[in-house]
């Protein structure tokens, strides 16, 4: 057992650090640091920059254009990326549908979809949840019926993150109701959002922004060749995807960055007040999260080490999802606490580039803290609520 980076790993870290120092565009950094939401073009530009260096598809096998990195290299990369507050990579294409395609898809599907995901030419979104199917995902009703060389899809998907920006959607759909277990009649289907009959309606979330959508399918014709793997096996493929999603949601590197940011802010005198870190209660809350986060970082590393020896991420990844999101939300709440009264003004118009300083209410991102806090209550709900994660662990790890 040892925790030291090898010389090669240190060289790799320096290489990554240097890349971000040189290639991370100043205007994107400014937006990130000023709490301005990145638009579609910003995100694509950033992802293309990473791909130009060969560092976009971090988790993919090399044969499809992935990095082929070791788990420790991935860990270093995530840390360096978070440390400069780089934009997040939108996961739906590169981290979610792509592993399903290269694991279960046909040769033709791999050639058709993977290069465009790699190059961020096509924006993907996820069609899992439905208005009547949240935690009980297997109860989903969106139907795909065979009609010659097409499926005809009818139904509604919801909570579709950034669906209004997407070109394609991957969906779990019901292809058969005549099955012993509900899970068996579900298939994994790729749908072009420009197909007639697809419509996207916004859902405005708690903090007042459009992030998620409802996607309606009204007699949408989808070619049979857009089915991934076998008909009726979609649930199995979807579960693999969810386990990838859960390891990604630990978000340790981001939380480390945010914790450092919080500590720095708490150590400063803001609005002429005494530094908040002098408050014993606040200092203890920060310390508790820091300890939890250190533990999670090592739990994450232990999981990565297990994956490196050839194991797929298993049900333990649920632990990362639960703890990771709990820590994120604790941090959100502490940022609000630190902002005090300045967490109250609802001033979304401030979060634009070069908003005049003299017109700004609050210091820095103080007024943004509550919006983030409200928005991020989603973290313990999405990707299988934390209660569902506990059900999974109880069943598959504890054998209950």
């Amino acid at each position, binding site marked *: *057992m*040892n*925790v*030291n*980076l090898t010389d090669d790993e240190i060289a790799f870290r320096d290489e990554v650090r240097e890349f971000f120092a040189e290639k991370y565009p100043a205007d994107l950094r400014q937006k990130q640091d000023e709490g301005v939401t990145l638009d579609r073009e910003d995100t694509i530009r950033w992802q293309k920059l990473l791909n130009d260096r060969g560092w976009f598809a971090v988790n993919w096998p090399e044969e499809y254009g992935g990095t082929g990195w070791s788990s*420790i290299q991935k860990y270093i990369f995530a840390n360096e990326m978070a440390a400069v507050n780089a934009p997040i990579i939108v996961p739906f294409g590169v981290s979610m549908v792509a592993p399903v395609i290269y694991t279960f898809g046909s040769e033709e599907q791999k050639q058709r979809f993977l290069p465009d995901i790699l190059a961020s030419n096509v924006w993907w979104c996820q069609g899992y949840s439905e208005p009547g199917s949240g935690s009980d995902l297997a109860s989903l009703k969106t139907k795909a019926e065979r009609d010659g060389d097409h499926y005809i899809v009818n139904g509604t998907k919801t909570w579709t993150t950034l669906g209004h920006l997407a070109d394609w959607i991957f969906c779990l759909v019901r292809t058969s109701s005549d099955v012993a277990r509900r899970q068996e009649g579900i298939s994994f289907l790729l749908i072009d959002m420009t197909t007639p009959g697809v419509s996207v309606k916004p859902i405005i979330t708690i903090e007042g922004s459009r992030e998620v959508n409802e996607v309606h399918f009204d007699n949408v014709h989808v070619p049979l060749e857009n089915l991934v793997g076998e008909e009726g096996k979609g649930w199995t493929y979807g579960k693999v995807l969810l386990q990838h999603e859960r390891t990604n949601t630990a978000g340790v590197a981001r939380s480390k960055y945010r914790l450092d940011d919080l500590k720095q802010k708490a150590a400063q005198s803001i609005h002429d007040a005494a530094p908040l*870190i002098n408050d014993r209660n606040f*200092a*203890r809350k920060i*310390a*508790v999260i820091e*300890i*939890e986060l*250190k*533990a*999670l*970082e*090592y*739990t994450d*590393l*232990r999981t990565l*080490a297990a994956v490196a020896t050839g194991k797929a991420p298993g049900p*333990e990844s649920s*632990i990362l999802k*639960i*703890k990771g999101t709990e820590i994120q939300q604790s941090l959100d709440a502490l940022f609000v606490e630190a902002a005090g009264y300045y967490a109250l003004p609802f001033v979304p118009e401030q979060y634009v580039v070069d908003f005049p300083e003299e017109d700004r209410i609050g210091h820095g991102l103080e007024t943004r803290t509550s919006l983030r806090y409200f928005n991020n209550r989603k973290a313990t709900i999405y990707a299988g609520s934390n*209660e569902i994660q*506990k*059900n999974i*662990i*109880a069943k598959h*790890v*504890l*054998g*209950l």
Partner: protein
Amino acid sequence: MDFSISEEQSMLADSVSRFIKNDYDFERRQKIAASADGFSMELWRTFAELGWTAVPFSEEDGGLGGGPIELMLMMEQFGRGLVVEPFLANVVLAGGVLRRVADAGQKSRWLTPMIEGNLQIALAFAEPQGRFNIADLKTTATINGEGFVLNGSKTCVLNGGSAELLIIPARTSGEQAAEEGITLFAIAADSSGIVRRPYATVDAHQAADITLRDVKIDAGAILGTVGEGFATFQEAVDEATLAVCAEAIGIMRTMHDKTVEYSKNRVQFGVPIGSFQALQHRMVDTLMACEQSQSLMMWAVMLNAADDADRQQAVSAIKYQIGTAGINVAREGVQIHGGMGVTWELDIAHYFKRLTAIDLLFGNADFHLDRYIRCSS
């Protein structure tokens, strides 16, 4: 970064684990704990024969050259077996002081026989008024010709009743809680002026309250440099803190496993109680507490901190974790076992008591959270 253990380390862990399985079942442990000494001298000699008492010492000192990882592996197994033999007191606490500051003569007089299983030693790390602050010492050592005279009181001296040699931190100068002015002395336990009141603790370990009245000692009893004993004292206590945390993880894992197993077999309302979601989620919480604690432990033992503050901070982080998440694992274990969980008959109750004692030993969760904060500023 590498989480795997070496072949030697794995063999060491296996040898302790085999001993627990074959020679230290709960029934035998209870018999040993109820005996006059409160531990088995015969088994202690076996520990020495197996080389366990030599693990953390350098080869030069007659040891096996192990470090925190070896100690962690052994202590985790001792936790699983609820071992009451005074490994912590002799090897980690007293041995930790001796290997750091004893001179060659002192080592051959005290450390060698301890490693051989022929000398029982205790470090008096606490005083009645000091709570968890080990620098808070009212015990004084005043110069008396070539030697010193000691006066004061010590409490909760682990292995204090059986010890033949006592290591006494005493104040040779400075204010009551100052880190400067502390000197470490090694004194025969039967010296004139020493009164010991031994007792069993709630977790079936053995300790003693000790008073020192005009205890006269010569210069040969001084360990290290006069007035500069605190750093050594603290390092030994920190090492012991890490060791009991590893022991706690063994206890937590055992309680968690036994509780899950029990919930699969205990039938109420016609079904195993483990089928109830209210209980399932709580057992998932205890699993997560075990994993998170293990992770912090690995961080703490792998951390080759050059900086004392960083090292202390890691120790305090894991001790805080054990005092909060760990205690919760123990309480849930008792709760889910229902009435059986609070009987003397069942091992669950005894695991719970040991974990409770570990929370208090060397500072509870609150104490260590505060120390953690001090270390970061």
